[in-house]
């Protein structure tokens, strides 16, 4: 913790950055903090409640943050993949951001609870983590904590869904998506959703009905998840942002698994590796094509 605060103080006082985006204690657990003066640096913390993916604040679309000036951002391994994704897709320039990585031992699924990391409380996204110590950083802080307990809840849910019949799966998603109010919070929270104009808002032609009808909700999520194929970093911010608790992480994980199975690609924190959609191999799987 002290290491992180000292580093922040140093970066801000020698003016190598104008703002450090990190975590501080708020009324409901940890919240994002935008530290602009060395005196505030002591607010910064990092612990198992720090679930937010702060990479999303580097998004050039977020003018209220980019106007603060050059940013340093505190990232966990999973968040570093989002920074890598933004670099890969030329949304940010490497020279314009300072990456402070923290070695991570997992976070909570529900950051508002005050529990220890256990098999039940650990975030499902930590279960498949391979980047507890990211390679993409300018500064790395902390000791590497022990591996987090593996929460297999999501994997089990996906397996259960796959075993169902088409009709049962259809009903499952109809029920889940019937709660969708089309607030598009899933998109706003996502570090990888940065189109200037989203297809969901296009009116000529109108691809997706903006009102919350069963079909439009399904079309919206299908499109959103397809656009994330091979780009999603599995930070689960979409699911956490959803006011209706729709299990969007299931869709994200399922597509990520499909991408891995078919194209042998997993989102990494190496921006030089091309994303799988946009490139091809002549021997790609085509068992589904007649």
């Amino acid at each position, binding site marked *: 913790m002290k290491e992180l605060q000292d580093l922040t103080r140093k970066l801000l006082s020698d003016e190598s950055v104008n703002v450090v985006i990190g975590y501080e204690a708020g009324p409901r657990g940890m919240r994002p903090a935008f530290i602009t003066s060395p005196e505030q640096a002591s607010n910064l913390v990092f612990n198992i409640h720090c679930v937010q993916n702060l990479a999303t604040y580097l998004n050039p679309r977020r003018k209220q943050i980019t106007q603060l000036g050059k940013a340093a951002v505190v990232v966990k391994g999973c968040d570093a993949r989002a920074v890598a994704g933004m670099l890969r897709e030329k949304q940010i320039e490497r020279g314009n951001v300072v990456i402070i990585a923290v070695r991570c031992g997992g976070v909570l699924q529900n950051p508002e609870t005050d529990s220890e990391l256990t098999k039940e409380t650990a975030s499902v996204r930590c279960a498949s983590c391979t980047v507890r110590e990211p390679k993409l950083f300018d500064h790395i802080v902390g000791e590497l904590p022990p591996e987090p307990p593996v929460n297999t809840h999501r994997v089990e849910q996906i397996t259960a869904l796959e075993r169902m019949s088409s009709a049962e799966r*259809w009903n499952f998603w109809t029920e889940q998506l019937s709660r969708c109010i089309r607030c598009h919070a899933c998109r706003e929270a996502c570090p990888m959703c940065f189109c200037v104009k989203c297809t969901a808002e296009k009116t000529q032609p109108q691809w997706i009905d903006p009102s919350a009808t069963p079909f439009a909700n399904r079309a919206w999520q299908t499109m959103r998840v397809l656009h994330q194929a091979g780009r999603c970093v599995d930070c689960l911010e979409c699911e956490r942002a959803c006011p209706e608790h729709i299990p969007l992480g299931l869709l994200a994980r399922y597509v990520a698994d499909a991408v891995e199975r078919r194209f042998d690609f997993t989102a990494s924190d190496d921006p030089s590796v091309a994303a799988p959609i946009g490139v091809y191999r002549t021997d790609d799987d085509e068992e589904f094509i007649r």
Partner: protein
Amino acid sequence: MSNEVEHLVESQWSPKVVAFVCNWCTYTGADLAGTSRLKMEPNVRVIKLPCSSRVNPLFIIKAFERGADGVIVSGCHTGDCHYSTGNYHARRRFAILHDLLQFMGVEEDRVTFAWVSASEGNKWQQVVNETTARVKELGRFSVLQEHESGELR
């Protein structure tokens, strides 16, 4: 509608299938099937596009929204693309779409992906007839049922 009329309408039901085909191979192949007077189910509506990679997954979603019961997506065999690599790119997108649609509960047989070359009139006939038969078996796309029952839009 009275029950009898409803029953009559239901017994006459035949699926609507939309085919998104590439201009260079499948459309020509379908044309060949036509000029060869091959017998095909009349359920398929062909939409000609420049390339299979022009098929945005949203086209398929939109087709279902507008009342299609099945969709065919077809283009040149890999290696034969008029634009050299279009269908390689399309294949990757279709693979993910194929998996995701199933995961969300759309029956696999509703969406047929096929490579049909300009000389494969017979294969086009097969794709059309088999897809129509399978969609007929599956019945109406449930979204349409929801639309018609008036409970949901």
